């Protein structure tokens, strides 16, 4: 799948941008030129050789804070997406196979989760368990999981009664075999698309929560937190929110671009094209016209 996504220009751009973001998350704190928590008298300074992106209202270096906050933002969004994937996908697939009771219970549970406003629910859970990004993102992941439940269920329903699935059952295939060999491959592309989109949404959610001071204790920097602090000083530093906003925007855009690329390469059309390419290469290598298969 990776090779086919990378064959597309959009896939290559998305992966390149996300790799840079991943590097920022890994090495950001080490790359920060200054202490991101150390204030100075030079508050709300414009960009200069000492402070490439200026300073915030407490005189802290914005670039250092952005780099240092990358890890929390990336890990938070990944936590949202992976939690949603784990909690939503398996019940979504199994709801088609494990009988009506399981189906009914999981459907009603997802309806309930969809009805809960995630921001208020996250605030309530943090009030209960204490402020921390992990619990905030886990709760948010559970609340986003109906997306994966619905996507995986819809994709499974579309193939569960397909004649080729019944053919596998008639051959004596177990439920596990059938799901692994016939269902999973059809469910994976829409799930991969949903995952890439949710990572993007995760960035927005982490940013929104940290913007409100939920999940991360000040003065720890995050992209959302930086955006929030800079918005208070627009009259003195109107370009302030630009850097964190651009970073969030580019990351979300790259996630969506990757989702589109996965959608484009997967599925029948993508695979047929791939095979066609292979067949042409095979024919060229032989330098002679290959015989057609069967007679018809």
């Amino acid at each position: 799948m990776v090779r086919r996504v990378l064959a597309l220009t959009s896939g290559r751009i998305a992966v390149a941008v996300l790799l840079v973001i991943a590097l920022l998350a890994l090495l950001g704190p080490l790359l920060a030129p200054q202490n991101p928590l150390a204030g100075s008298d030079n508050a709300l300074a414009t960009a200069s050789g000492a402070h490439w992106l200026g300073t915030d209202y407490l005189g802290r270096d914005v670039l250092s804070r952005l780099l240092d906050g990358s890890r929390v933002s990336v890990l938070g969004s990944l936590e949202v997406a992976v939690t949603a994937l784990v909690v939503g996908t398996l019940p979504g697939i199994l709801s088609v196979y494990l009988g009506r009771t399981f189906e009914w219970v999981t459907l009603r549970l997802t309806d309930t989760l969809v009805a809960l406003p995630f921001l208020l629910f996250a605030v309530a859970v943090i009030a209960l368990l204490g402020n921390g990004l992990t619990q905030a993102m886990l709760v948010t992941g559970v609340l986003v999981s109906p997306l994966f439940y619905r996507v995986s269920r819809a994709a499974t329903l579309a193939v569960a009664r397909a004649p080729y699935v019944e053919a596998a059952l008639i051959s004596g295939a177990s439920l596990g075999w059938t799901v692994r060999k016939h269902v999973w491959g059809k469910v994976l592309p829409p799930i991969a698309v949903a995952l890439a989109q949710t990572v993007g949404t995760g960035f927005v959610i982490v940013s929104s929560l940290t913007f409100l001071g939920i999940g991360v204790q000040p003065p720890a920097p995050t992209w959302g937190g930086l955006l929030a602090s800079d918005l208070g000083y627009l009259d003195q530093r109107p370009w302030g929110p630009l850097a964190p906003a651009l970073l969030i925007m580019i990351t979300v855009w790259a996630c969506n671009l990757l989702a589109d690329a996965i959608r484009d390469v997967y599925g029948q059309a993508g695979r047929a094209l791939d095979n066609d390419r292979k067949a042409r290469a095979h024919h060229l290598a032989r330098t002679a016209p290959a015989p057609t298969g069967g007679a018809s």
Partner: protein
Amino acid sequence: MSAEQPPAPPAEARTAPRPVLEVTGLEVRYGRRRPPVLRGVSLDVGPGETLGLIGETGSGKSTFARAVLGLVPAAAGSVVIDGEETRGHSRRQWRRLRRSGVVQYVFQDPLRSLDPDRTVAESLTEPLLVQGVTAAEAAERARAFLDQVRLSAELLDRLPGELSGGQRQRVAVARALVTEPRLVILDEPVSALDSANRVQVLEILKDLRARGTALVLISHDLGSVVGVADRTAVLYQGELVESGPSADVVNRPRHAYTRLLVSSAPTLHGARTDRAGREALRAQLTDLSH
């Protein structure tokens, strides 16, 4: 079992050893309150015998196949496959029976019956891998069966979408045969094929019969079955209305519906005479169903 008593089957069919498929009084319902889709259907097929099952759309032909294969539960009656009573089988018992490879099914639509994302090789080896055969042996046997259905081994790496209709149907037949089943049920195996491909598939079926495989050919078209089937059974509104040697069913149809089927084939008498005859038979059928 049927509205009319079927004539005695030929002696050679009766003297055959234990039937591979014995269905007695089969009743199938989709929902308790709904009327049965199949009522009291009884028939059997011996080794090397070909039974044609004819009926119009909605007569219960495919439901019969699905009930025999355990894909829909039987409300009443018995289905014995190779001496094993399957009515009331649990999922596990069905899986064991299916893994033994004794019964296989060829679907009506070959394109949809082959996984669009799996190559011909993957589709052909699947029934063997499920049985526990090693991947290398499965690949070898799949290649051999592709040859038996007159397809080139070059197609093994192709996807179903890259095959012609006739090739797909032969791949579907090869997949059903790869476990060397004793009973194969084929749902409209040739109705979507052109005459050249039809002949090829029918030749394959003849080979199969010669090897002692019992075949049930399901079709809505009497003409495409009687030439191949030893015996023909006619389903009408979920009931078996006629059953007997194919020649008798065509030449001496006893039930009005069978006569209608036979008369539906165009003759040299002229369209007007044909139509008048069919209208009379339809009126007779309406009287019978009331």
